[in-house]
């Protein structure tokens, strides 16, 4: 039995019908409290603005002070997608490596085919003497990776591979910790395979080659997210790239490239690929004309994606 969308929807409906205690919402109290807040808001508008800035800055500080450092990110340079760590050796069953980067989290994942194909997620953590270990988990020593300390992170101290959802963390350049998170592992010796994959991971920033070139992207546009699914999101035999840009005055652009035809307008096909542009505040037809598709052979892909 597998969990599909219908199962999940039905399960959630049933869960929402769980016997519940009486609701504690007091609408009159809510109104009174909100009115007091409205009065304070009016009286302290200027102070409130300053405080709001403070809260915002504090929020940024929290984000920057978080434990996880990014494994890939967007870039406003020639290539909108850069990786800060990369897989090296991977089992033959792996079909490709996907990058999903932007404001909502950065992910690098390698996967095998099929619904239950092996998933391998790469992540990075800040420099520290010891590996990061979440509450309720234990760090069990693993064989060194490239001569550096390594640990299995597990909920069960008697099971390094954590019931098949394995986390391997090992120290890399600069004292940071790399993480390999693997599941649906079908290998005969999953621990040895994960250690070998970890040994092949390289640390360092490098642009990810992409299958298009854009000549003269408006300078006011900044890339906000890049999703490069290899293989495709739901299809093992293809791939899809989506790049999201934002500009002043609410301008936004989404560029999608795939070997498959996609819904959207305007679109164009060339070199065995299809590209669609969705734009607000920018002429999509003009932008489409500026795009050169480089074909399905990734040896022809480029890191000079955006040219003046």
């Amino acid at each position: 039995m597998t969990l599909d969308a219908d199962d999940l929807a039905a399960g959630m409906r049933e869960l929402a019908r769980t016997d519940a205690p009486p609701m504690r919402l007091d609408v009159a109290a809510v109104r009174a409290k909100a009115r007091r807040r409205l009065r304070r808001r009016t009286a302290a508008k200027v102070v409130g603005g300053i405080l709001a800035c403070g809260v915002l800055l504090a929020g940024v500080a929290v984000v920057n002070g978080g434990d996880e450092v990014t494994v890939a990110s967007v870039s406003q340079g020639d290539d909108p997608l850069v990786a800060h760590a990369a897989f090296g050796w991977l089992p033959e069953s792996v079909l490709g490596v996907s990058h999903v980067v932007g404001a909502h989290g950065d992910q690098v994942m390698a996967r095998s085919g099929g619904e239950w194909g092996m998933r391998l997620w790469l992540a990075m953590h800040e420099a520290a003497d010891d590996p990061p270990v979440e509450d309720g988990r234990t760090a069990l020593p693993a064989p060194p990776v490239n001569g550096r300390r390594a640990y299995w992170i597990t909920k069960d101290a008697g099971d390094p591979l954590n019931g098949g959802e394995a986390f391997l963390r090992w120290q890399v350049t600069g004292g940071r910790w790399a993480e390999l998170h693997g599941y649906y592992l079908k290998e005969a010796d999953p621990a040895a395979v994960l250690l070998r994959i970890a040994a092949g991971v390289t640390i360092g920033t490098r642009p990810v080659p992409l299958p298009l070139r854009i000549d003269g992207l408006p300078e006011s546009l900044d890339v906000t997210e890049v999703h490069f699914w290899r293989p495709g999101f739901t299809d093992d035999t293809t791939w899809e790239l989506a790049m999201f840009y934002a500009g002043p005055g609410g301008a936004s652009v989404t560029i999608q490239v795939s070997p498959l035809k996609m819904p959207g307008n305007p679109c164009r096909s060339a070199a065995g690929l299809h590209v669609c542009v969705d734009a607000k505040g920018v002429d999509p037809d003009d932008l489409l004309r500026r795009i050169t598709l480089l074909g399905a052979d990734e040896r022809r892909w480029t890191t000079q994606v955006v040219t003046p």
Partner: protein
Amino acid sequence: MAGSSARDDEFTDYVSARSAWLRQVAFLLCGDWHGADELLQVAVTRLYLNWSRVRAVENPDGYARTVLVNAYLAERRSSWVRRVIPFTGDEERPAADGDLDGVLDLRRALADLPPRQRAVLVLRYYCDLSVEETAVTLRCSQGNVKSQSARGIDRLRRMLHPRAEEVSS
């Protein structure tokens, strides 16, 4: 005063009519009814503060749902979550005619998801929003909704059917 009273009546009517539904969404987001009540209180207060805007929108339910989800995600980022007692499985019982074990398992599994993944799944599969509508609610891209959905369902599968992968391999 008459305007204020009319506004209050309108607000009260809306909340009275929709609070049960909003509470269910809040429950699915945060996983316990007491937390759902706190979340509902926060969201309804924000609705009152912005009532003129709620009245002007075409879809007040969508607005209220967005406020609720934002309140949930904000709470998860704050120290409030540290005060929440983790789910132990015996606080409330599922409705008697349902699959007790299945519902409790789903509740535990949902509780183990990161907040944003959980919000995506609740919006997509309980509120029945499209990928596009979910992206608008969460102010993120459609691709992000897709990836969060996939990762969330993946994780639920592993938690709910740990042996299914062996069977299907």
